[in-house]
């Protein structure tokens, strides 16, 4: 169990949250969790332990069966699908394990997409902000390329730029290095951390890697749908 600060202060809070996929047993059992502004937290755990599900609930991609999820102070349970989507696109950036870039858009257009969806910025401003964000992840020269022309590491850097470009309060990263080799993974992770620090947003990272997790402010472990704090000795030995 994990508790910190109040719901109002937290960027994300989950209270006694339970969830089951249709036709399956419960994946999360009464999870309580809070993420403060600017805080960077990692959740580690085995495959199928429920850590990605927690991320999906936090993003409002799934609705909790029980308990409450508050995102940026708003209770998701009280919002309809469209309102949840509006809240997500304004306050959240997501980095997926398998990048999820839109293959029919160029690199620049992929990064412009959240700005088009979430802000009222004009075309020129969108282009300028996206280009700046791409430059920040070191891909200024790849703007006009399509995702299929990039390496895996480059694609994930585009995904990071896309997640950050509209300056969300929270970045949700689901195994961002899971599809990359260790060297590229290390580079991408470092870039993610650097960008998160630079923008001051919160980060909730789901990963298998204890090594990466230890580099964040706090590490939690998910075991059979139950979220637990990790003491420093456990973290160090992992």
């Amino acid at each position, binding site marked *: 169990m994990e508790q910190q600060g109040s719901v109002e202060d937290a960027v994300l809070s989950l209270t006694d949250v339970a969830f089951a996929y249709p036709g399956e047993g419960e994946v999360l059992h009464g999870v309580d969790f809070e993420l403060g502004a600017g805080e960077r937290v990692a959740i580690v755990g085995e495959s199928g332990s429920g850590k990605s599900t927690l991320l999906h609930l936090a993003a409002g991609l799934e609705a909790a069966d029980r308990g409450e999820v508050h995102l940026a102070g708003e209770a998701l349970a009280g919002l309809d699908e*469209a309102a949840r989507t509006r809240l*997500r*696109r304004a306050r959240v950036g997501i980095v997926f394990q398998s990048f999820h870039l*839109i*293959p*029919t858009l160029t690199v620049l257009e992929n990064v412009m*997409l959240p700005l088009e*969806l*979430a802000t009222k910025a004009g075309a020129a401003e969108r282009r300028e902000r996206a280009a700046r964000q791409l430059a920040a992840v070191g891909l200024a020269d790849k703007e006009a390329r399509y995702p299929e022309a990039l390496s895996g590491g480059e694609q994930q850097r585009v995904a990071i730029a896309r997640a950050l470009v509209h300056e969300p309060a929270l970045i949700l990263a689901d195994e961002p290095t899971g599809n990359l080799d260790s060297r590229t993974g290390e580079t991408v992770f470092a870039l993610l951390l650097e960008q998160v620090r630079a923008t001051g947003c919160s980060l909730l990272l789901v990963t298998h890697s204890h090594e990466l997790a230890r580099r964040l402010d706090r590490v939690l472990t998910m075991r059979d749908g139950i979220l637990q704090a990790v003491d420093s000795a456990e973290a160090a030995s992992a």
Partner: protein
Amino acid sequence: MSGLVLRAWLRDWRRRPLQRLLTLVGVIIGVAVVLAVDLANQSAQRAFDRSMDEVAGAATHQVLGPASGFDEAFYRDLRMAGWRDTAPIVEGPARLPDGTTIYVLGVDPLAEGPFRGTASDIGDAPVQRLVTEPGTILPPASWFRDSGPAHEARVTLEAAGGTREVTVIDRAAEREAPDAEEDRIAGGSLWVTDMATAQVLLDRLGRLDRIDVRLAEAEVDALRDALPAELELVPVESRGQAARELAQAFRINLTAMSLLALLIAAFLIYNTQTFAVLRRREVIASLRLVGVGRRAIFGVVLLEALLVGVIGTLLGALLGIALAQVLVAQVAQTVTDHFFAVAVTGVTPRPLALAAVFLLGVGLSLAAAMAPAWEAARTAGPGGSGRGGLERRARSWAAWLALVSLVLLLAGSGLIVTGAGALVGGFVALFLLIAGFVLLLPWVLVWTLRGLAVLVRGVTLPRIAVRSLERSLSRSAPATSALTLALAAAIGVAVMVGSFRGSVEQWLGQALTSDLYVVPAAPASARAGARLPQDWTADLVARSGAVSVSTGSSQEVVSDHGLVDLYVVRPHADWLEYLPLLEAEAPREPLGHRLATEDAVLVTEPFAAHHGVEPGDRLSLAVPGGQRAFEVPGIYRDYGNPSGTVLMTQAAFARGGVPPDGVGSFGLRLPDGANAEQAVEQLEAWLAEQDHAALVTRPGDIEQESMAIFDRTFAITHLLRVITLVVAFIAILGALIALQMERAREFATLRSLGLLPGGVRALVVLQGGVLGAFAALSAIPLGLGMGWLLIEVINREAFGWGMDLRLSWAEVGETVLLGVGAALLASVIPAWRMARMRLVPALRETP
């Protein structure tokens, strides 16, 4: 092949029933339309042949005379001269109170034995009653079954002799052993009666229409020599030949339309089969991993297609038989309207037709699955190129197909320019051009979508929509091709029918130059042979105040081109000003003089086309007074008779010394400002007192009747057009569903980035709209081209009719809207599904 492999493959049916249903629907509709048209054609053909056979019986030759018949005494003379295998006939159409046209065959039962057997022989009990009881008639057995009146009921018949009551005799009720073979085969529309009754019904007192003769080859010349000048001996097969050929041309048109529907269905099947394979690439990969070979993968895909083909064909055959019941009535009505009175009592699927359609349906399913099966076998296994590879290949194929299309387009154009192959050549050219155009579409689609993507650069969602369509070319190209074909067919047929209708209307306006017409009171199809007294002219003028009277009479005469329809006119003075002359050797004024004073005739456009006659040629016609050669100084437009007509002035006709023995119709021209209503009333009052039943009609009534026949003729084409559009709609629906399902991961990503459900709906509908608009715009040139080909090549070859091309932009616009509307409508379901999609499972899908 392992049962488990098959099970792994086919279990998908339970998971995606809608996809399988769409594939099945494609096969079902394609097979149903082809079978229905074939059955309807065959049934109408059988009815036609049966009618001809029933009328002609076992005769080898027929002795024919003028349209009004010839003296029955001649038959007696013939028998007395030793020609024993002869049977006199009085025949003609009549109408039942419910409007059904029947064909009355008046026979001499004593002479019938060698010709039509017990159906009309005196040895049969029901036939004996015809002789002993005047006013009795033997309808076909099926009429009693279908229409209900009882044995010996009184039925009113309207024929050339006016309206008369007859007693109907049911053979089955009359016989001790019902269900005799001839009862079952004597369906159709032939009503047998004694000659005396027929003469009264058909206004032929003391006259015969023909004498059936059975001759050995050596006897033909002897009998021909024995005939008087006004009679001709013709072989039986020459009668009805023209009608047979024209009916066949009509059927070829229908068959072509049904094959087009099948072609569109093939696109649908290909689309769904490709999708079925692509969606199961994980299954393929897993099967390959455990050691299943490429051949087995290929086999399992084809086996599935075979299963779909068999189920779809069986269901399609059932639907086709049901649909044929609707179509056959339409086809039979057209044959009756234009060629010969036939009645079709039912559709009997022939085993051969069923076998052919079974092979077609299953073969088509297998052929459509061949490419996806090859794709599955080729890309199966780990490292397979999957969807991306297929799409890359599709894009490179588009360029190759464009090259092939150019070859096809050139070949089709060459066929048209050279005119090779006549009607069949015309259809081959049509299909080559259609195939060429359709094969060009993927390439055009790629470049159109690329152009659109440039246009919407910076507007992200529309850009995603068009780029996604381009990246799914294997999906979007067949769907747009199917819709383009259907819409083009709709435009082509609309242009052809519209041009035809407009030309017919214009022609009717030109041809009907009188204010009132007096015609025999008989069904339209019976009027050609019916006659009114020649000496009515003065009375008609006196009663109506007409300033000019024209007359016209149709009859069949023997010519050096076989039996031809001759129309003898005594026209109004200015008639040539209104006659739509197409080609003439001389200006109208000297032409009128020549037609009146020399042996000269005009021929209609279909006549010229069927018989290869040109201005300046000569025609030998057997007119009263003997065979004479007539020059043809001109050709005129006429839609009245698809077989073609020879037009002769009464002055030329009577020059042989024998004036026409009656008039087919009188045309009365009233003075300017005359009260037509009053003239009609006075004429009707006078006609009511006459022995011959006649009625007064106005040009408007004739136009209305003619246009009703015209519309009936093309009703079936409209029906096929609707079916084709339905198939195309399903094709685009299937393509959009497939497209959206394949792109589910992308849509889920967009949703996770913040695109609202409404945005997803808009995106999908936009894609449907783009495909629909592309198909609709592509359909315009193809449709107009098809319309032009139908008018200038197909119809000219099939019927000899020329017509002015009339473009109805309103109809073209309507079809375009229909296409875009259909595509938008088809996108509603996928849009709704995508907007409601659960995001997490879609995000987890393998890219």
